[in-house]
């Protein structure tokens, strides 16, 4: 992976700066620099074509299925099964204000996308479509690459966790 890391490093640093400006919490910038040094990982499970998508599309797959490409490191209940979508939270919940960042490979256009895993907060566990994939998941001491945190921490709603979304925030050039 050494070669790849160096390939990605430049754009990753740019991403880090962009994100740190976006971040709502003061001390996130530094951590996100580390967080964004994400080697491009295989998305073997994500690359599996979903039955319902015969034609290759720009965003192929079924967002209610765990093998959807952009869930390559998600851990929780899919909001797409809970009244939300792959990038929107169910009614009455709040998107977490802090997230963790990953990179997933989109088999539809062959690109690797930087995705932000937001949790939706303020209600109890949705309980539907539990999905745990750990491509590039890191231990708890690398928070912004770890899917074992409840990312509702820091949201107005507090820690109660309902479900998880994965939204595109950039292309990993």
């Amino acid at each position: 992976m050494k070669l790849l890391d160096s390939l990605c490093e430049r754009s990753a640093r740019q991403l880090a700066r962009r994100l740190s400006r976006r971040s709502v919490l003061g001390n996130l910038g530094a951590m996100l620099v580390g967080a964004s040094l994400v080697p491009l990982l295989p998305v073997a499970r994500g690359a599996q074509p979903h039955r319902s998508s015969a034609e290759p599309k720009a965003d192929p797959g079924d967002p209610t299925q765990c093998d959807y490409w952009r869930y390559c490191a998600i851990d929780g209940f899919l909001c797409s099964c809970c009244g939300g979508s792959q990038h929107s939270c169910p009614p009455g919940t709040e998107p977490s204000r802090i997230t963790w960042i990953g990179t997933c490979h989109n088999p539809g256009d062959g690109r690797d996308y930087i995705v932000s895993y937001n949790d939706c907060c303020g209600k109890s566990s949705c309980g539907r479509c539990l999905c745990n994939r750990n491509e590039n998941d890191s231990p708890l001491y690398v928070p912004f690459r770890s899917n074992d945190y409840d990312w509702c921490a820091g949201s107005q709603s507090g820690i109660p966790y309902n479900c998880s979304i994965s939204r595109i925030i950039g292309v990993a050039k």
Partner: protein
Amino acid sequence: MSSGSLARRLFPGGHLAAFAFATLLPCMAVAGPPLANEAATLQTLPSQPSPHWVWVNDIAFFNMPDGRATLVDGDKGTVLGMLSTGYGYVGVVIPKDRQAIYSPESYYSRGTRGVRADVVTLYDPRRLSPMQEVAIPPKRAAILSTSSAAALTDDDRFLLIYNFTPAQSVTVVDTRSRKFVGEINTPGCALVYPTGPRSFFSICGDGALLEVSLDDTGHAASIRRSAKLFDSQKDPVAEGGVRVGNTWWFTSFNGMVYPFEFTSQGVTVGQRWPLFSAPEQAQGWRTGGLQYLAAYRRSGLLYVVVHQGPLATHKDPGKQVWVYDLKSQRRVQRIALRHEAGSILVTQDASPLLFTCFLGSGALQVYDARTGRYLRTVESVGQTPTFMVSP
């Protein structure tokens, strides 16, 4: 064609192959514009619910601090959202104008210990978020759910909640001022069955009814105990009555139908009739479940969950629904269910759905209520779903 599908052609399946390929991808040219960045958004619901939506209440019997109600779209077979509703949850109450969702809830300051707080939470039906909270006495009956534990008067003005401490009473909440009004003692009598804009009855242990009328402030104007309308020892009626116009329809453990007809003068029992013929009784057919009755009001039909079993199986689920014409008092249809059902609900629109669920399963089934044809199953709508309510 996309390099993704190319990858699949070249390397069908294999993790390592896919991995080796993926590591090269960044170096390859890719056609077409990239997918746009996305903001995290929040769903809201349309102002008018579909007639084919249904609320499924969940007491979460294995984890009772986490009661909930889940809103399901019966046509799409999808979950639209949920409410978190506290300890030992019974169910939501929906006013006719659908401008709020009323939810009687209980909480402890430390989950299962500490200070108990009972409230009626008002939820925004489009945002499914709390709008307001009305404090009520911490007396709400802790029971395995029934739709008769709380109800609105016919004009939606007063919310009535059954209490058991074990002293029995009814809490009254004014939905206009959104305040607790007071308590009405109902010694020896339980649950609430509305009979008009200012009246309801409770069922008493001896088979009589307690008929209560309210004044415009929500206080008791008159309380009258009826004669004994049925034998609560030998053949009690189950709690799960269904209302059609000015009649509350109940059925007894042994399958006798009791129409409780009410006027401003009070409640009387109309003509009783049996659900089961003598041969059917001999074969052990009986009603069973929790919300095992449903009415389709347009056609005056009564849907009943039935099974074959001995006495004391009155809580067992069934795999058949028998449909009766309330006028002719005859069975007009038998529906064979795919899965056991303890609770059923029929929508009131022109092309009604039959919803079924069961405490012992987290799934909801959807059938065509006219033909009985199985349509779909919605998985994981709760841990121990109790009864359903139309939004």
